[in-house]
């Protein structure tokens, strides 16, 4: 049963456990690959994870002159292959969300690979395993659909890839505002 990374941005508390966990993935050389962003730090404590969305037609891979960014059969857009990456940093500019990071010492791009050694066997990536708030979840399409129904979300307004993002993505994003459609119990 295929599972996807699903983000419910409203839930984030900014603990950055996702980043700590990212360093723990076997293939990640103890470097974290995503971002958590303080939305308006002088005003309130709202935060949001900024994760690679694993685009269906990824700009990062398209921009790479050396074909260093491979797409796994699960749809995960992998980190640059060490032997192929020429360190041109095209991908960091091409990605609409600024995801790929660059290691100047190794002259190498590195990015989220959805913990491919886990996710290829259906084991949730580290970030979605630990996220204490369910901002990051690892769900089947049926479960994501159920979420859509639960929150009374019409025409993909809240559970979305399109039209709010640049292109179709494997990761599903639920923008802040999720609770607006919830009817109170009393």
């Amino acid at each position, binding site marked *: 049963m295929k599972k996807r990374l699903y983000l419910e941005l409203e839930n984030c508390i900014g*603990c950055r456990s996702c980043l700590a966990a990212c360093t*723990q993935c076997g293939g990640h050389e103890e470097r974290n690959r995503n971002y958590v962003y303080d939305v308006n730090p002088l005003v309130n404590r709202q935060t949001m994870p900024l994760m690679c969305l694993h685009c269906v037609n990824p700009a990062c891979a398209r921009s790479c002159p050396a074909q260093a960014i491979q797409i796994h059969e699960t749809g995960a857009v992998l980190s640059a292959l060490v032997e192929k990456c020429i360190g041109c940093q095209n991908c960091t500019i091409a990605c609409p969300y600024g995801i790929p990071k660059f290691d100047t010492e190794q002259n190498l791009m590195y990015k989220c690979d959805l913990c491919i050694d886990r996710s290829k*066997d259906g*084991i949730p990536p580290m970030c979605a395993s*630990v996220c*204490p708030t369910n901002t990051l979840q690892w769900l089947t399409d049926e479960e994501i659909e159920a979420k859509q129904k639960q929150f009374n979300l019409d025409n993909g307004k809240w559970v979305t890839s399109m039209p709010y993002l640049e292109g179709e993505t494997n990761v599903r994003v639920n923008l802040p505002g999720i*609770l607006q459609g919830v009817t109170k119990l009393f």
Partner: protein
Amino acid sequence: MQMDNFRNERDQYFKEIDNLNHPNETLVKTHCSYCAMQCGMNLRVKTKTNKIIGVEPRYDWPVTLGKMCPKGVTAYQQVNNKDRLLKPLIRDDQSLKGTTNGFREASWDEAYDLIVKKFTELQENYGKDSLSVYSGVSMTNEKCYLTGKFARVGLQTRYIDYNGRFCMASAAGGLNRSLGIDRGSTIPWTDIQDTDCIFLAGSNTAECHPTMMFRVWAIQERGGYVIVADPRETPVARRADLHLDLRPGTDLALANGIVNLLIQKGHIDEEFIKNHSNGFEDTKELVKQFTPEYTSAITGVAPEKIIRAAEIYGKAPNAIVMFARGIEQQIKGVDNVSGYTNMALVTGKIGRAKSGVATITGQGNGQGGREHGQKADALPGYRKIANPDHVKYISKVWGIEPEEMPKEGVSAFEMFGLMEQKTIRALYLLCSNPAVSAPDQNYVREQLKNLDFMVCVDFFLSESAEFADVVLPTTTWAEDEGTTTNVEGRIIKINQAQMPLGESKPDWQIQVELTERMGRGKYFSHLKTSEDIFNELRVASKGGTADYYGVTWEKIDKQDGVFWPCKDENDPGTPRLFLDKKFNHPDGRAKIFALPYRPSAEEPDEEYPLRLTTGRVVYHYLSGNQTRRIQFLRDMCPEPFVEVHPETAAKYNIDHEELVRLYTRRGETTYQVKITEAIRKDTVFVPYHWGHEKSINLLTIGALDPYSRMPEFKTCAAQIEKLKIKKVQ
């Protein structure tokens, strides 16, 4: 109940998920070393070298399902940390106390000999009670239990107390008084998501107990309500349906105001009040005064918000009241606990699933560690030294005469007073770091210096160890096994994943070896393993309020933990308290308390117009002795800061990231300013995880709650001064 197949509930979130097993690695199931959420985790151990190298989520732990905060994810990095103490240290030159200088490595024998010589000399010259033990509850039940026995039977001193006085003492006092029992939660955590309203008072839940947040948010996703009372708009308050932004130190007025409205608007449960409680009429009379306007004048919360909070809580079919250090670390902490508990009692929202009262315990074993006799007035099983029958029972278990049982001692902070008077001349400190965590640090550090002799047991050279003559290296949590009792009152098992590093030894082993050298071995030598100690604890707790007699390590494993009380082999434990509406007072009734409001020990004035409140950040644990050494956590939050509202900052003409002098009547320090609208204008906030000159506890006040002896960390009067120098960018 049929025991054979009993297992504690798994809820809708539980999924069977495989773990990733790397070749040549073993996964060891255990729990986090830090807070009382005690998140399940697997430690990754290199099979050949027996070295802990990482963490893997523990999806099958029903409370946290693999979730961890960043402290938990990186907790394993304590074990083989470069700062670990690997050998005993001795410092001969007492003039170097309070610094890291002058320590030399020594053998265990030399260290033990010196301790025995000093302790014996002091006791011969100044009496048995010239020694003291200051302990903590970030360690297993086995260790907490043994430490009480170590002090009273091994060292034969009355002076033992522990850092729970800065943590859970007010909750314990309030819950005992209101409900007759101090089990932090009346319900399991797997009930939270299914309640209709959660009222969180003085809990920065998202930062201090992050892994319960998915349950809190789920309440809202079902259409239920989250209400938060906090001077700051914390991450949980940000998304709450209602944020009651009260002045620090005014919780009791808010609680009284809400209880008044619950009564006035008819949300009370008359049947429950009549049959299962005492004290309603007096309370009704007292809270009358707390109209929304009067309550608003004291708390600073708008009257409409108070009315709305009472309406939501009152109408909710099921509701949970939860609180934490925010309401407890005040000179009226015990009253605050009883005050908020009154909300559940007048409405009868207690003693059933999805409704109840809970304190969100701080330290990993803050629950178990306070039940088994580390507290100045307590003996195992929540027994009391003041009760001759209790003394008789425990004396028998310990093999001493009741007359030999030392009398009650004094609370942790009061021990510093006795050090000042030279009543206490030596200190055996373990599992705690009062040179950061105690209030009024200038005073506390002076008293530590003033000691004739001090032993500190730790796995890192903490700020407190800097005052010691002898430092003994102990193990981290992952190098020993035993049990803890989590935030719910569920007894769980910590497993050993690695052999002790260097020459470090578990605390219990150190205590057994020391007592043997002090000629008290006959009371301790039979304790060869942690499980031996647990089995003695079971007997010692038998028949007490916190009865562990029916708990075995095997049962813990089989049932996913055991909730106390658990009285015998056939008892699966008690996940929910008071289902029969029988409370633990002798008449079986709960007590609704009439609690007159009183101000804080130090209210703001012209000279010190701001309220200083202290607390935590998600990246650090307690005094920071453990978490400040971990790269990821240090990178995320390297330094303390002072949070100031932009309007307040404008008044002082200070900017974001500017350095300012913050001072109170007791001390001063400099911090970088963090401007945020998410705090009251009359309040400033500083997290407390740092030592030396950065410690906010240089400024806090040592005023104590009269019942719990808990210091008032949560409010005192302060002032800010703009400095001439700006921060060099």
